[in-house]
C-alpha cells in the first residue's frame, strides 16, 4: 500500500490525539472519578493505535495498546486512578510523542519502551505500584460484575429459559480480536457465520449494526443458544484468523434475573457513592471546588465547539498561493478604480465600487484563514507545568485565559519557545516553595496565569505569577557586576527598566544553575525572538507579590504597516514599528560631529543616515534646502534616515526576496505596491550599529 501520501495526515492527527490524551489525563487527575474522561482518553488512544497499526508503526501501536489496557481497567473499575499511575501513563504518552516526532522527522518510529511497558503491564495486572489491599478487593468485586455485563430484556430472558428447558445450552462468548486486526468488520462477519452454524445468536453487545460499522474496540460479546459444547464453539471461532481469544461462560435465565436485580442495586449504590463524594468535595477547600466547576464549564464549551466547528486541513502553501493570486486581483482593482474615475461612467463606477467592497471582504476572509487560535501553543503547557512542579517540589496551579485568541500561523510557530522559557522562569524563580509561601502567609499553591488577548492590531500574551517578584537591588547588583549597565546609568533607571535588565544578554538571575532553567540560555533569547517577530516584552513586578511578563505581538507577520518614502525615483518602505516620528529639518540645522552628520532631536544627538548614499541611488535632482527625515530606533539607539519625500502610511504584504538574493544589506524584504511595482523594505536594525 502506498502510505506516504497519508503520512502527513497521520502525523497531524496523531499529534492531535496525543494532545487530547494529555489534556484529558490532566483533567482526570483533578476528577479521578469521572469515567467520561477515561472514555475520551480511551477513544483517542484507540484511534491512534488503529492508525499506527495501519501505517505499519508496530512499536507505536503496541505501546498504545498497553496503555489502552490500563485505561480499560480504569473504565471497568479494575484499576484505581492514582498519581503514580498517571505518572506512568504520562510517561508512556511522552514516549508515544517521541515516536510520532521521530516518524515526522523521517524515522521509523522505533523506541525502546520495555521499562514503561513493564510498568503498564504491572498496573494492568492489578499489581499497582503501591499495592493497597482495599483497592484490590474493590477491583475483584468490580471484575465479577463485569463478567456478565450483557443486559437482557424480558423477551430474551424467556428465550434463554425456554431453550434451556428444551435441552439447549446458552453461552456468553467474549471474543477478542487481535489489536492489529485491520478488517474488524470482516472478522466479525466470519465469526458470526461460524456461530450461526453452531446454533442461534440471540444477542450481541455492541449491536450487530455497530459491529458491522466497526464501532467497537477489540472485543465484543455474543450470546448463543446451542447444543454444541462450549469448547467446540470456542475452537471453531479460534479458527477465524486474527482472533486473539474466545471465552465462553454458560448462563441461565435465573442467574441472569438475579444478576440484573443486583446490578440495579449496585447502580443505586454507585450513585449514592458519587453523591457522597460530591458532598465531600464541596466540603473541602473552596479552591478545589472552583477548579472542578471551571473544568466542567470548559468541557461543556469544548463540546459545543466540536459540534459547530467543521474544519478541513489546508496546506499553508496553498493559502500562500491564494493570497498571492488575490494580491494580483487587488492590484488590478486599483487600476480599475483609476480607470473608472478617469472615464467617470456611472455604471462602470458602480460596478467597480461593488467589486472593491467584495474584494475587501474577501481579503479579510483570506487573512483570517491563516489565523490559528493560540490554544495550539498553550495546550502543551499544562503538562509541562505539572511535570516541572513535581520536579521542583512546588505546588502550582496553571490558569489559561483567552486560549481562543487568534494569531497568524507564522507567529504561532515562533512564539512557543519563548513562552516555554518564560513559564520555566516563572516556576523556577517566581513561585516559592510551599514552605516559604506558607511562612509568608500565602497559600501553599502558587498560581501562574497565562493570558492572551487582542488589543488593536496587536495580541498580548501575559505570564503572571504570584511568586516572590523581582528584587531590584539583586538585579542591579548582578547587572553591575556583569557589566550590563554602568554605575551612573544604574542610578537613573526606573524599576521597570531595572526588571528589564534580566532580559539583557549576559544576564542570568539564577543563583545556582538549576536543572530547570539552567540550560545555558538566558532570557535574552526570549527578547531577541520576540523582537525579531516585531513584538516587544515588558516586565512588571512587585516584590513579594509576583511578576507579570507582558509580550506584545503583531497580529500577523505577513502584513505590516509601513511608511512609504521616495528616494530620488525609487520607493522604499520603512516598517512603522521602528519609526518614532518624521521630521523636516533645515539644511543649516544639521551639525557635523567627527565626519558624521547629526541633528539635535529633542535634546538628543541623532546621527543621520542618507539612504541615497547607502543604497547608491542614481542621483538626478538638485539638493534641497530641507531634509525629510524619518527617525527610527533600534532598542534605545536612534537614527535619522534622510529621504527625499514621504508618500504615506500603508499596509503591505511582506514578501521575501527569494533564495537567490539572500543577505542584501539593509533590506529585509519586498512588497508589491498598488501599481504592481516592487518596493523594498528597509531593515532599520542593520542601519543602526
Amino acid at each position, binding site marked *: 500500500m502506498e502510505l506516504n501520501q497519508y503520512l502527513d495526515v497521520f502525523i497531524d492527527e496523531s499529534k492531535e490525539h496525543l494532545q487530547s490524551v494529555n489534556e484529558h489525563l490532566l483533567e482526570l487527575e483533578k476528577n479521578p472519578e469521572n469515567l467520561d474522561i477515561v472514555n475520551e482518553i480511551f477513544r483517542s488512544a484507540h484511534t491512534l493505535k488503529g492508525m499506527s497499526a495501519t501505517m505499519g508503526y508496530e512499536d507505536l501501536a503496541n505501546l498504545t495498546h498497553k496503555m489502552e489496557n490500563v485505561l480499560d481497567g480504569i473504565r471497568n473499575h479494575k484499576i484505581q486512578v492514582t498519581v503514580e499511575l498517571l505518572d506512568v501513563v504520562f510517561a508512556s504518552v511522552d514516549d508515544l510523542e517521541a515516536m510520532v516526532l521521530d516518524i515526522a522527522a523521517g524515522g521509523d518510529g522505533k523506541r525502546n519502551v520495555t521499562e514503561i511497558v513493564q510498568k503498564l503491564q504491572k498496573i494492568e495486572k492489578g499489581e499497582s505500584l503501591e499495592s493497597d489491599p482495599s483497592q484490590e478487593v474493590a477491583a475483584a468485586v468490580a471484575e465479577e460484575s463485569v463478567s456478565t455485563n450483557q443486559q437482557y430484556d424480558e423477551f430474551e430472558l424467556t428465550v434463554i429459559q425456554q431453550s434451556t428447558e428444551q435441552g439447549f445450552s446458552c453461552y456468553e462468548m467474549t471474543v477478542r480480536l487481535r489489536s492489529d486486526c485491520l478488517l474488524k468488520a470482516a472478522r466479525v462477519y466470519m465469526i458470526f457465520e461460524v456461530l450461526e452454524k453452531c446454533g442461534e445468536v440471540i444477542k450481541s453487545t455492541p449491536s450487530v449494526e455497530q459491529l458491522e460499522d466497526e464501532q467497537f474496540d477489540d472485543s465484543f460479546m455474543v450470546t448463543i443458544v446451542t447444543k454444541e459444547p462450549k469448547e467446540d464453539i470456542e475452537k471453531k471461532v479460534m479458527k477465524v484468523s486474527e482472533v486473539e481469544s474466545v471465552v465462553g461462560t454458560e448462563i441461565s435465565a435465573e442467574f441472569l434475573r438475579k444478576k440484573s436485580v443486583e446490578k440495579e442495586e449496585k447502580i443505586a449504590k454507585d450513585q449514592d457513592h458519587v453523591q457522597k463524594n460530591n458532598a465531600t468535595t464541596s466540603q473541602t477547600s473552596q479552591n478545589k471546588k472552583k477548579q472542578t466547576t471551571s473544568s466542567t464549564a470548559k468541557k461543556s464549551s469544548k463540546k459545543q465547539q466540536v459540534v459547530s466547528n467543521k474544519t478541513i486541513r489546508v496546506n499553508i502553501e496553498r493559502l500562500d498561493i491564494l493570497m*498571492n*493570486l488575490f*494580491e*494580483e486581483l487587488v492590484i488590478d482593482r486599483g487600476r480599475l478604480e483609476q480607470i473608472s474615475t478617469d472615464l467617470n461612467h456611472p455604471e462602470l463606477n458602480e460596478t467597480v465600487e461593488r467589486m472593491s467592497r467584495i474584494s475587501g471582504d474577501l481579503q479579510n476572509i483570506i487573512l483570517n484563514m491563516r489565523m490559528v487560535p493560540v490554544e495550539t501553543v498553550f495546550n502543551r503547557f499544562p503538562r509541562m507545568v505539572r511535570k516541572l512542579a513535581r520536579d521542583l517540589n512546588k505546588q502550582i496551579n496553571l490558569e489559561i485565559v483567552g486560549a481562543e485568541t487568534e494569531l497568524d500561523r507564522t507567529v504561532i510557530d515562533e512564539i512557543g519557545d519563548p513562552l516555554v522559557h518564560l513559564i520555566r522562569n516563572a516556576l523556577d524563580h517566581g513561585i516559592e516553595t510551599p514552605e516559604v509561601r506558607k511562612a509568608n502567609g500565602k497559600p501553599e499553591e502558587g498560581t501562574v496565569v497565562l493570558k492572551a488577548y487582542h488589543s488593536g492590531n496587536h495580541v498580548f500574551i501575559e505570564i503572571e505569577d504570584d511568586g516572590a517578584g523581582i528584587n531590584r537591588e539583586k538585579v542591579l547588583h548582578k547587572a553591575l557586576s556583569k557589566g550590563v549597565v554602568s554605575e551612573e546609568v544604574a542610578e537613573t533607571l526606573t524599576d521597570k527598566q531595572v526588571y528589564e535588565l534580566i532580559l539583557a544578554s549576559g544576564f542570568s538571575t539564577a543563583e545556582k544553575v538549576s536543572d530547570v532553567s539552567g540550560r545555558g540560555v538566558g532570557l535574552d533569547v526570549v527578547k531577541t525572538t520576540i523582537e525579531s517577530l516585531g513584538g516587544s516584552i515588558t516586565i512588571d513586578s512587585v516584590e513579594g507579590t509576583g511578576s507579570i511578563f507582558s509580550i506584545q505581538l503583531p497580529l500577523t507577520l505577513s502584513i505590516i504597516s509601513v511608511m512609504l518614502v521616495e528616494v530620488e525615483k*525609487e520607493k522604499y518602505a520603512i516598517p512603522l514599528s521602528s519609526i518614532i516620528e518624521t521630521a523636516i529639518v533645515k539644511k543649516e540645522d544639521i551639525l557635523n560631529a567627527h565626519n558624521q552628520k547629526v541633528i539635535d532631536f529633542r535634546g538628543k544627538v541623532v546621527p543621520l543616515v542618507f539612504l541615497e548614499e*547607502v*543604497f*547608491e*541611488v542614481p542621483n538626478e535632482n538638485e539638493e534641497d534646502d530641507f531634509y525629510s527625515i524619518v527617525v527610527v530606533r533600534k532598542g534605545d539607539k536612534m537614527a535619522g534616515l534622510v529621504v527625499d519625500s514621504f508618500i504615506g502610511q500603508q499596509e503591505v504584504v511582506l*514578501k*521575501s*526576496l*527569494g*533564495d*537567490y*538574493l539572500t543577505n*542584501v*544589506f*539593509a*533590506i529585509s524584504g*519586498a512588497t*508589491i505596491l498598488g501599481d*504592481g*511595482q*516592487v*518596493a*523594498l523594505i528597509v531593515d532599520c536594525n542593520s542601519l543602526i550599529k
Partner: protein
Amino acid sequence: MTTTQSTTTLKVIAFQLMEKEYALPVRQVRSIEKLMHITRVPGTSPFVKGVINLRGVVTPIIDLRKRFQLPNETYDDTTRIIIAAIDDLEVGLVVDGANDVLDIPSEAIEPQPEVVGAVEADYITGVAKLEKRLLILLSLEKVLN
C-alpha cells in the same frame, strides 16, 4: 550506442544576445515575459538588475549581457525576460529576444572550440550547429553562481 545517440534530442529555448544565439534546456524555463518595471536592489552583484513582481512573486532579474561582460544595450520591444528555474530557485534573465523552441540532436552538440584568445567561460556547456545556426548551450547553474 550510435542508434540511441541519433534518437536523443535536447529541447531548448533559443534566445539572442548581441546577434549570437544561446540556448537553455526547455525544462528549466518556466515562461517568457515582456519587459516590465524592474526595481533595483542596492548592494547586490552588478549583473543583478533588480526584482520584478511576477504574478505576486518577487523574482530576481539577471542581466545576461552584464553577466557575460558584453556591451550594454538599451532595452527595446524585442527585449524579453526568460523566467528560468533550478528546483525552487527562480530567476529572470534579460535577453535581447527569445522566440524559438528547437530540438537539437545530441550528436550536433560539441564542446566549445578552444583556441588561443577565446574567452574562457565555464557557463557554456557546449555549442550546437544546426544547419546554418550556431547555438551556445548554457548551464543555468553556472550562470547563477
